[in-house]
């Protein structure tokens, strides 16, 4: 009896679990579908939001050539590639690759770190806004826990990248110093050396 009960309980929980998995898979699929459907709009607004922190975003928005417009180009590419991943199981490494250039740019633009990475979080709000406006999919808004989690993972990956970029910048500085060119400004000044100097070899 007990065994039976136990069995049936296990069975029930297994079924429940299956249902839950199916549910979550379906939701995941729904969300992916929603992102596919609104991809353009979301990326558009996301990029616009991120670019609004520059003084002349208009140019960055319009110019489509990545060579004539590296900032706008890099952002658009990064967000466009990042978005579909946010509906899947997040892989941190993948995020890193996608966000690399975006973060590299933000890391040298005189922004404080929070400013630099804030645009990544913006997609949470943008997505909610867009879903809410979409009658068919408005229900999805209530269940964006996984999506938010993926955004958080992406932001954490970006944080690592940001630090890596800053460290590389300082390493570059050091390399410049080591390469000997500091002699340009740290060498004895001419007026000083006009006075007789000892033989320095």
């Amino acid at each position, binding site marked *: 009896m007990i065994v039976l009960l136990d069995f049936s309980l296990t069975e029930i929980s297994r079924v429940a679990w299956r249902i839950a998995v199916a549910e979550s898979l379906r939701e995941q699929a729904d969300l992916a579908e929603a992102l596919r459907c609104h*991809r*353009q709009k979301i*990326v*558009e607004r996301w990029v616009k939001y991120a670019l609004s922190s520059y003084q*002349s975003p*208009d*140019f960055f*928005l*319009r*110019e*489509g*050539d*990545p*060579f*004539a417009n590296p900032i706008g*180009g890099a952002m*658009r*590419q990064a967000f*466009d590639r990042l978005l579909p991943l946010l509906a899947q199981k997040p892989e941190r490494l993948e995020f890193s690759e996608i966000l690399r250039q975006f973060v590299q740019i933000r890391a040298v633009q005189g922004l404080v770190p929070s400013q630099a990475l804030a645009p990544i979080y913006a997609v949470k709000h943008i997505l909610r806004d867009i879903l809410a406006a979409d009658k068919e999919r408005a229900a999805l808004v209530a269940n964006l826990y996984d999506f938010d989690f993926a955004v958080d993972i992406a932001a954490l990956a970006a944080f690592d990248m940001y630090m890596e970029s800053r460290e590389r910048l300082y390493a570059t500085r050091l390399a410049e110093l080591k390469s000997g060119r500091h002699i340009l400004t740290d060498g004895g000044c001419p007026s000083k050396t*006009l006075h007789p100097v000892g*033989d320095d070899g």
Partner: protein
Amino acid sequence: MKYGAPFLAVIALVLIAWLGSLIPGMQYVFGVVFPYLAMAMFLYGFIRQVVYWGKSPVPFSIQTTCGQAKSLDFIKHNKLEAPDTNSQVVARMLLEVLTFRSLFRNTQARIYSGPKLTHESSKWLWMFALLFHYSFLVVLIRHMRLFLNPYPVCLDWLEFLDGIFQIGAPNWYITDICLVTGLVLLLLRRFCQTKVRYISLANDYFPLFLLLGIAITGILMRYCLRGNVDVVAIKQLAVGLATFQPTITADIASIFYIHLFLVCALLVYFPYSKLMHMGGVFFSPTRNMRNNTRAARHINPWNPDIKPHSYAGYEDEFREFMVDAGIPVEKELPAKQA
């Protein structure tokens, strides 16, 4: 306001001419005195500005090379973009002045296209500029029939070509439409492109409004208010102005005086404004110089007399080190004292 004030200024000019020409006796002032005055100020201002530029020398040869320079025999020389002779410079300048070559260059290959981008072709500016400038030129030439008596027959050909589509009555000229279109597009560009809007000054809007005013009054005269406009009287006045025997024989409609007054305003404004780019483009040292500065010496009239820190001074300071290091010196070290 950067565009409000210039707009109002043009409106004010229109009102002045309109009301002024209604006052008896003022027709002569608007029809004869102002045009002469304006022409005189234009010529004086234009020449003064060119002389002002000419007075400053060109100390250095600072051409911008936009292609391969003349070099070794087997390296193909780009004669237009890095001219080596005067005729090549002339060719470069002609292309620049007649076809706005540098603006045309404003092209960018778009390799990557993200999700739905508003692509703004970089050739727009070039097209707008060409449209406006050439229409304006043709319109100007067409006006010569008013000033010349008899007028050369080529003006007839030009008018025939200009009106070849035979639309409307009286027949619409293509250039009239293009002129206004060009101006409106150039204006819209200033309004709509944030970047251009941000750099625009009142001095950029004023000439656009003024030219639009001139074009619109001209078009109104020809196509809409034709009944009120006595073309014979205008021709008489124009020929009179050109031959220094001006007469106003009949009442001419105010619209004509408005048109004429705006043209006068343009003439007066021209030499003191950015419109002088018309003359300046010929003077631009980055375009009108030969790229042969290593083959032929360019002379700077005020070349200052500056000598380098002398070798003698250098050797005096470092002689000991130089001798130690086995570097030849001009003056040996003094014999060591015991």
